[in-house]
């Protein structure tokens, strides 16, 4: 085949493919009366479930806002819209999508992806492109030690996740003394474990086991047998849903007993209770929010957690967990900041976000100079007889903690 034929064929193919890509109908970002947010969320991959929960939280806010007259910015009324794309639970893809949202689709602002790694790469992109991003699902503090100015997180940082459980433990009798910590080897979980270990040591408890396991492991027998050998009062895990399930099962299989079993992620999700059945009872979980939280939110959105939970349940068929709530809260941060700034200019909105100080159903939304919400406490939930109850802090609880956890043989 001659040079020209081959070359022509190649050029045709490449041009065709590119044309194909750009033939995707451009989203209506240029529409004058709509504020468009871009959200790269996992619909496939290892965090597909959590990505779905995040999307529900975003969508709930969007539908509520549009049904209640939209947003009023600088005297003009806007509808809101959110564009989604699947980042496949992959940080590179998240970064590419955010790049695409801003430079091709020309969205106004970015709502964060799920997970610390994806939030980290997305944060690097929005910093370069100077578009504000608010996220509710990336808790690793390392995201915020870069000096980034355009990323804000509404959730309490990773270090605090398990501290609530330890705080509560200090008030229980007989007071537990020894702590075993097992964490997955990824940014978020390591921080969770580190925060717990530091708190324990500072408050007179002894950390008798503190080990990491590979982030996507399928076998935790060695961790469990190692923990069993030191016979701790409290067992804590910093990790994700998969391991929380695996560990709890393995604890039962190897007959490992403790006064408190605490997980950073897992007990809150409906999947956890459904899968484990009664083996999930007595388990504690660190939580960013619960439907019984007694905050009084400012005007402009549902101010009461119970009302939010009921409305959410009606729409999605399940009671919201904290992933849902923190995602809605991320949107709320934008809402209040944009309305205060009175403009859609990225820099003005960014400054308004930095100065934000408002109470919502989710808790206080306020960011320190790094962009982290250090002002919202973590609560503690416990699964009691198949129900999720908030047991700490005292001001928010709707049940007393059930303590100590009985041995497996007598359940």
């Amino acid at each position, binding site marked *: 085949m001659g040079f020209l034929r081959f070359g022509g064929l190649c050029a045709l193919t490449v041009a065709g493919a590119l044309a194909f890509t750009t033939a995707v109908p451009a989203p209506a970002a240029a529409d004058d009366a709509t504020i468009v947010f871009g959200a790269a969320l996992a619909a496939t991959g*290892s965090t597909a479930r959590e990505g779905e929960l995040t999307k529900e939280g975003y969508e709930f806010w969007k539908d509520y806002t549009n049904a209640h007259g939209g947003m009023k910015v600088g005297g003009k009324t806007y509808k809101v819209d959110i564009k989604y794309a699947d980042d496949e639970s992959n940080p590179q893809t998240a970064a590419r999508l955010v790049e695409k949202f801003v430079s091709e689709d020309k969205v106004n602002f970015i709502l964060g992806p799920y997970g610390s790694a994806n939030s980290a790469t997305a944060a690097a992109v929005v910093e370069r492109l100077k578009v504000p991003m608010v996220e509710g699902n990336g808790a690793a503090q390392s995201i915020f030690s870069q000096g980034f100015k355009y990323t804000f997180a509404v959730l309490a940082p990773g270090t605090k996740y398990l501290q609530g459980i330890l705080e509560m433990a200090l008030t229980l009798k007989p007071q537990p003394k020894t702590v075993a910590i097992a964490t997955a080897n990824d940014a978020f979980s390591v921080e969770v474990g580190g925060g717990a270990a530091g708190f324990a040591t500072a408050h007179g408890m002894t950390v008798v086991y503190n080990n990491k396991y590979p982030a996507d492991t399928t076998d935790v027998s060695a961790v469990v047998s190692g923990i069993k050998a030191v016979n701790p009062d409290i067992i804590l895990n910093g990790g994700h849903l998969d391991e929380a399930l695996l560990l709890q099962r393995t604890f039962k299989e190897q007959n490992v007993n403790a006064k408190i079993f605490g997980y950073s992620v897992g007990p809150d999700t409906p999947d956890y209770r459904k899968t484990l059945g009664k083996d999930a009872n007595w388990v504690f979980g660190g939580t960013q929010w619960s439907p019984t939280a007694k905050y009084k939110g400012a005007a402009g959105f549902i101010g009461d957690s119970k009302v939010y939970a009921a409305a959410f349940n009606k729409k999605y068929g399940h009671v919201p967990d904290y992933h849902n709530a923190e995602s809605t809260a991320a949107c709320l941060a934008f809402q209040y900041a944009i309305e205060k700034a009175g403009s859609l200019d990225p820099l003005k909105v960014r400054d308004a976000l930095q100065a934000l100080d408002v109470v919502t159903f989710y808790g206080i939304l306020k960011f320190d100079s790094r962009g982290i919400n250090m002002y919202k406490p973590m609560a503690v939930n416990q699964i009691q007889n198949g129900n999720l109850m908030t047991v700490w802090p005292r001001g928010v609880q709707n049940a007393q903690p059930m303590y100590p956890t009985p041995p497996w043989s007598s359940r």
Partner: protein
Amino acid sequence: MQLFWQDLVNGILVGGIFAVVALGFSLVWGIMNIINLAHGSFVMLGAYTAYVLFSTWNVDPFLSIPVAFVLLFVFGYCVQRFVINFVVRAPILTTFLLTFGLSLLIVNFALLVFHGDVKGITTQYSGSNFSIGSVTIAWVKLWTLLVALVITALMQLWLTRSKTGRAIRAMAMDIDAAQLSGVRVAHLYAVVFGLGAGLAGAAGVLVSLSYSLQPSMGDPFVITAFVVCVLGGLGSVQGALVGGLIFGVLEAFGSQYIGTGLQDAVALVVLLIVLILRPRGLLGKAGA
């Protein structure tokens, strides 16, 4: 010392699962020279078969094993006969690619059907255990090991005693001679691949008793299968069993004494050492 025995027992128990997972992979690779990257997805399908039967009709997972085996056998037979067969004598890289594409297809199809959320099977007897001295053994894990041993023994018997089994072994040694003797190679190739898939399906049921289910759950098992095949030797049933048990024990001890963060690395380093010193594995044939 108690820790040592507990780890040893844990290692053997999990090694049984590894052996069944690797058995199908080893047969397909040893006899047909195909590295089946979709093997993990077959394991996943077996696990989901057990899940569907359990959640819809409360069928005990152990009873689902033959069902999963048959279903996956048929599936594997068709995949080989009508898709892979086109390139089965191509260089190993071609089939490697093809099975990679198949794996993507199967996993994503499962994602569509079952969604990404984590599922699990919790039966009445999940987690129940007994103790010998200070070592605790979970009943489910013990039964899994026993079933694994039975499956391995049955496979070995069939390959050595049955007519089809012997034809397959003849074919593996010299395909042209076998063809000349009247062996229907295309059909037999499909049988072998179907067997590999069926065994993966059975392994999947066993896995579902101990692990959570997600469409992507099969990927780590392909790596496991690789390592077990190298340790134990390709194409041999005893090799898969021995390799699986050794790998299980290695991981258990490695993670406890060198660091739980390094549990896979330990096993892989051992793999490398075995490869350098004795590439055909412990029970493999020389020149394989």
